[in-house]
Each structure stands twice: as C-alpha cells, then as structure tokens.
C-alpha cells in the first residue's frame, strides 16, 4: 500500500520530466556502471542460454550418432531371410564386418557423454544461475536508487520553484500562500533533506559496490570459463579417442584429411549401384499401367532387362499358350536372330476356354484397329501366313514386288536397328520370315529396321 502511494506521488514528476518541464539530475559515473551492469546481466542470460544450447547440441550429436550407427548397421546386415551379404558383396565386406563394432562404439560414446554433460549442467549452468540471482538483487537496488533519485529531483524542483516565486514578488506571496508559505517551505525542505540523504546513501553504495561486483564477475568467470573449456575439450577428446580406437581395431584409416579429399575418395568408391538402382523399373513413376503392360510385352519378348538380346529366345510355340504374362521362356528357337515380343494378349483366352471367340484387342489399344484388322490379325495368327514372296518367280514378275504391312500396335525401338512405328503406319516390307514370331525387316519414312512381325496386319498392300 505504501508502495502504491509512493508510485502515485512519483508519477506526475515522471511525466513532467518526460516532456521536459522538470529537470532530472544525472550522475555520469553511476550511469557508466549501470550500463556495464546491464551488459553483464544480458551476458549472464546469454551464457545460460548458450550453455544450454551447447549441451543440447552435444546430446543431439551423440544421440543421433548412435541412431545413425544403429540404423546404418541394420541396413548393412541381412534383413529377414537374407543371407551372406559379404559373400554377395565382397567389396563391402570391410564395412559390413565393422558394423557391430561401430554401433557398439557409438552406444558407448552416448553413455560416456552423459556424466560429462551433467558436469556442465551442475558446474557451469548452476553457478551461472546463481550469479543471475545475485544480479537480480542488484537490479532491485538500482531500481530503488532510481526511485530515490526521482524523489530527490521532485522535491528539489518544487523547492526551486517556490524559492523563485518567493524572490519574485512578496505581494503574490500573500495571495498564493495564504496558509503560511514559510511553513510550506520548511516542510518541503525537510522532505528534500530526507530524499537527499536516502538517495546519496544508495547512490554511494552502488557506486562503491558496482565496480567491485564487476571485478568479482571477472573472478567468477575465470574459473567458470576454465572449467567449461576443459569439459568441452573432454567432449572432443572422448569422441576422438573412440573414433581412433574404433578405427584402429577395425583397420580404418581416419587420419585427418581435407573434406574435399574425403568427398573425392567417396566418389571413387561409388559403384555402379547408383545407376543400377536408377535402371530398376520400380523406381520409375507409373504413368499408365496399360502403357507399362505394352512396354513389358515388348521388352520381355525382345530384350528383357540386362540380358543380352542375342541370347534371349522366346518360345516359338508360345502361340499355343496364353500370351498374357510374358514369360522369359528359355526354350530355344534356334535360327532366329532374336525373339520377337509376343503379340498383345491375342491368344489370352484361348488356352482357358475352348469355345472362345477371337478376343478383341484390349481396350487400351487404339480404337481404330478394332474391327477387321483384329479379325485379320487373329486369323493371321491362327493360320500361318502365306509364304513371303522371297523368291519371286522370274519372268512372271519382272519387278520385285513391294509389299506393305500395316501396324496393328505401336512399337518403340528397343535397340539400335529396330524400327519404331505407330498404329496404322504402312511399312514397306523388305524381308520377312515364315513365322510371325520372328523379327522382320522393313522400311518406314526412309528408315530401315527390324520389328516384331506380330505387330502387323499382314494383309499386305501391294503396289
């Protein structure tokens, strides 16, 4: 209650000083100390905050180091049902064999670091918090000094005013200070004296003790800094020591080299695994399943994956079986240059149902080919195609007959020398074999190449 009364009586003065109507006394010496003290206060706050950040970072470093090692070693050990990774990847044997030790070392480190961090917590953070408490009391004293200074200035101002007036006109005095101005003046003088004493006392105390406190703060920070330094050094030491002993035991060379060298040697050791993963089908985005199906038909017949296409042979009897899941049949069809892709799902239903009619092409092929071409294609499949006019009878046909075939499906080149075409293209047939299972040679738009005979509607156009 007393505090509120004081605060209220001080408020008008605070306002008038702000707007420059009343004077404030300044003590430059004290202000200098107060400024330093303010710096120290914020420094202490920062010290606590950063020490905490440091501890958190160290904790995170060792926790994530342990986590990294654990997960890495899981990845490098056989996953459910796998066996003998080293046998399969002898080059990675060294890494794989080191995993247990590595994970172990990181786990130990994480445990080792615990006490060290506790030390920082209790020996650095603790005292830093204590000094914060001390600073808070000093701050209180400084605030008190401010109040006392306000009182001092307030009374001082009033007194000055009153005296000014007294000097100016004695006649006014009668009107203004009817209630005996002399007494008023006396009272003010008394108050002023008290305020002066109080202010002087606290100001002197502060001016005396603040420099001492600064000295003490330096004395305080010296051992604290040294302690922190050694604790920090120990963190690095623990890590270094563990890494070195791990490297020694497992024959890794961890001599300090530049980061660029580490990256460079990494690049050298990088295997073709990157490319091989990139080449996998499952890591490519699916655009449309139907297109994938087509591609796989073409690929499985033609050149499945990395196997050379020359030694790939599709079963020549595949026309009797459902063609749907293109299998990597190994039955050889000797004499064929390469195996053609099976036709898209033409015979699919035949094997399953004896009373099946010629199946229409799958809905995902171009709709224009539905109709006569379908039937013709199916027919062509059932009945062997007419023998190609490889040897035109001389005399009867003076000019070599040009034969055209119409593409039933899109075909994208699988390798050099393949002829790409779209559904409906007319292809000039240059060479064809007896079987539609084989690759034929043709020309389209001036480009000559081979393509799977099955992709074509063979009711040839002649010119």
């Amino acid at each position: 209650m007393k505090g509120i009364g004081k605060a209220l009586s001080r408020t008008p003065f605070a306002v008038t000083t702000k707007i420059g109507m009343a004077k404030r006394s300044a003590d430059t010496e004290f202000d200098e100390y107060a400024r330093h003290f303010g710096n120290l206060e914020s420094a202490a706050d920062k010290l606590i905050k950063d020490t905490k950040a440091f501890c958190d970072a160290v904790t995170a470093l060792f926790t994530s180091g342990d986590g990294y090692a654990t997960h890495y070693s899981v990845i490098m050990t056989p996953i459910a049902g796998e066996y003998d990774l080293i046998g399969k990847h002898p080059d990675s044997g060294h890494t794989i064999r080191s995993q247990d030790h590595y994970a172990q070392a990181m786990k130990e480190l994480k445990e080792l670091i615990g006490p060290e961090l506790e030390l920082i917590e209790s020996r650095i953070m603790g005292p830093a918090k204590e000094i914060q408490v001390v600073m808070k009391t000093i701050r209180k004293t400084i605030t008190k000094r401010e109040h006392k200074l306000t009182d001092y200035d307030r009374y001082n101002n009033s007194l000055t005013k009153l005296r000014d007036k007294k000097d100016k006109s004695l006649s006014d005095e009668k009107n203004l200070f009817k209630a005996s101005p002399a007494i008023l003046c006396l009272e003010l003088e008394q108050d002023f004296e008290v305020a002066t004493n109080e202010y002087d006392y606290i100001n002197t105390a502060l001016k005396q003790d603040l420099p001492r406190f600064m000295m003490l703060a330096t004395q305080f920070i010296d051992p604290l800094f040294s302690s922190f330094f050694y604790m920090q050094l120990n963190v690095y030491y623990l890590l270094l020591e563990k890494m070195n002993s791990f490297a020694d035991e497992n024959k890794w060379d961890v001599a300090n080299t530049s980061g660029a060298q580490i990256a460079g040697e990494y690049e050298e050791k990088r295997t073709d695994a990157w490319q091989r993963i990139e080449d996998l089908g499952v890591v490519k985005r699916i655009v449309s399943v139907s297109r994938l199906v087509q591609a796989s038909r073409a690929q499985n017949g033609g050149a499945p994956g990395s196997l050379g296409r020359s030694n790939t042979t599709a079963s020549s009897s595949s026309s009797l079986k459902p063609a749907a899941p293109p299998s990597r049949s190994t039955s050889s069809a000797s004499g064929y240059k390469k195996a053609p892709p099976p036709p898209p799902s033409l015979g699919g239903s035949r094997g399953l149902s004896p009373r099946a009619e010629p199946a229409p092409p799958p809905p995902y092929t171009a709709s224009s080919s539905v109709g006569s071409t379908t039937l013709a294609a199916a027919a062509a499949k059932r009945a062997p195609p007419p023998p190609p006019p490889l040897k035109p009878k001389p005399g009867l046909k003076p000019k070599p007959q040009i034969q055209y075939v119409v593409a039933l499906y899109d075909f994208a080149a699988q390798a050099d020398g393949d002829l790409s075409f779209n559904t409906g293209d007319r292809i000039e047939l240059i060479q064809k074999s007896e079987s539609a299972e084989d690759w034929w040679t043709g020309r389209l738009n001036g480009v000559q190449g081979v393509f799977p005979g099955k992709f074509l509607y063979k009711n040839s156009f002649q010119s």
Partner: protein
Amino acid sequence: MSWAGFKKSVNRAGTTLLQKTGQIERTVDREFADEEAKYRIFEKECQALQKDSKAYWDAMRAMSAAQGRIAETLETFYGAADQSSEGAMAGHAYKRSVDDLDSSFNREMDGPFRTTISEPLGKMCAYFPIVNEHVAKRNKKLLDYDSARSRMKKLIDKPSEDPTKLPKAQQEHDECKEMFDMLNNQLIEELPQLLDLRVPYFDPSFEAMIRMQAKFAEEGYEKLSGVQRYFADNVRDDYAAGQLDAQVENVLQEMRELSICGGN
C-alpha cells in the same frame, strides 16, 4: 478424381468388402509378401537413417555455433572490468579458435557431408514413394483381378443365357491378370534387387562418415587445446582437483555479501 477413377475405387471398395465377408477369394502371394516385408524394413531404416544423419549434421553445426556464442559472452564478462588479465587473454584466444573452428568446419565439411551422406540417403528415400506407388497399384490391380476371376468362375459354374457373357468375363479376367502379373512380377523381381544393391550403394558412405566424425573430433580437440597455453599453469590441475568449482563458489559468496545485494 476422374469419373473413371471414382468408379474404379467404388468397385474396389466393393471387392474388399466381399473379400472380407468371404464372398470373393483373395489371392495370397507369399513371395510378394516376403519381399514387401523386407522392403518395408529397409524403407523404415533408411528414413530413420536420413533423420539421424540430418540431426547429426545439425548437432555438429549447433555445437560449433553455441561455442562461438559462448566465447562472445565470455568476452563481455571480461570486458566489464579487466581486459588485460590472463583470463581475458585466454578468453580471447578461445574466441579465435572456436570461430576458426566454426568457419573452417562449415566451409570444409558442408559439401562433403552432403555428397557422401545426405545426398545418397535423400536419393534413396526419394525412391520410396515411387516404389510405394507401384505397390499400391499392384494391390489395386490384385483387387481387380480377384473380382474378375470370381465373376468368371461364377459364369463357368452357372452358365448364363447370354453366350457372349463368359468370353467377355474371360477377356476381362485375362486383362486383369496380365496387368497384375506384370506389376507383381516386376516387384518380386526388382525389390530384392533394390535391397541387394543397397549394400554397394551405401557402403562408401560409411568410411566417409567415420572419417568425418574423426575429423570433427580431431580438429575440435586440436584447435581447442591450443588455448591451454594461455591458462595459468595450475589451472589444469585445479580443474582436475575440483578447485575451480570452489573458486566459483567463493566468488559467489563474496558477491552476495556486497551491500547492494542486501548483505552488509
């Protein structure tokens, strides 16, 4: 979602329901299930590894940055009173070495860490959503296939009046089977390849990682221990003996006794 997509998902939801109630037989593919289970473990581990590697890097950075800020704060403490004391000199040397450490570490290690750890992991982890898309697609096609098969079987068991129905159902069944088989075979064939390739893929990262860890520790240790010579000779022993803590306590006590602290 397109109208066709919507129809598909409604149909598939129906199939799932019928499978749950046992109306439609569900295809169980042990081979795929095994591969998928392994792949899931791999996926999980890779993602955890990515998280930890990022945390590790961030922690190294944070540690080095916090050191720098602490060194700055120390200078403020010394700056308040005595700037030429032994402690202030040591603090200054300390600040120089941690700044040096921070900048050289960032400059030298940022690129290599990314090349050898973050990028391979990021690349691998970026594959997972695509692979999962394949798996999801395969599962959808499996539902289509199951439902087409059950429709066809029903027609074979109970031939319909309309003779075109069965061929149509068969046709549909074959198509579904083809799509499913293709996706399924691809996954069964390639998932083990992907898993197998992880070994050569991640192998070089290991050596790079331990070398960088060792480098971080070694440089930190070396640069910091250089500051020691600015300390008075007895400091190290005092630290070991716990003397420094006592000093701190004494100073604090002295502070509390200052008149401005409420003591007298």
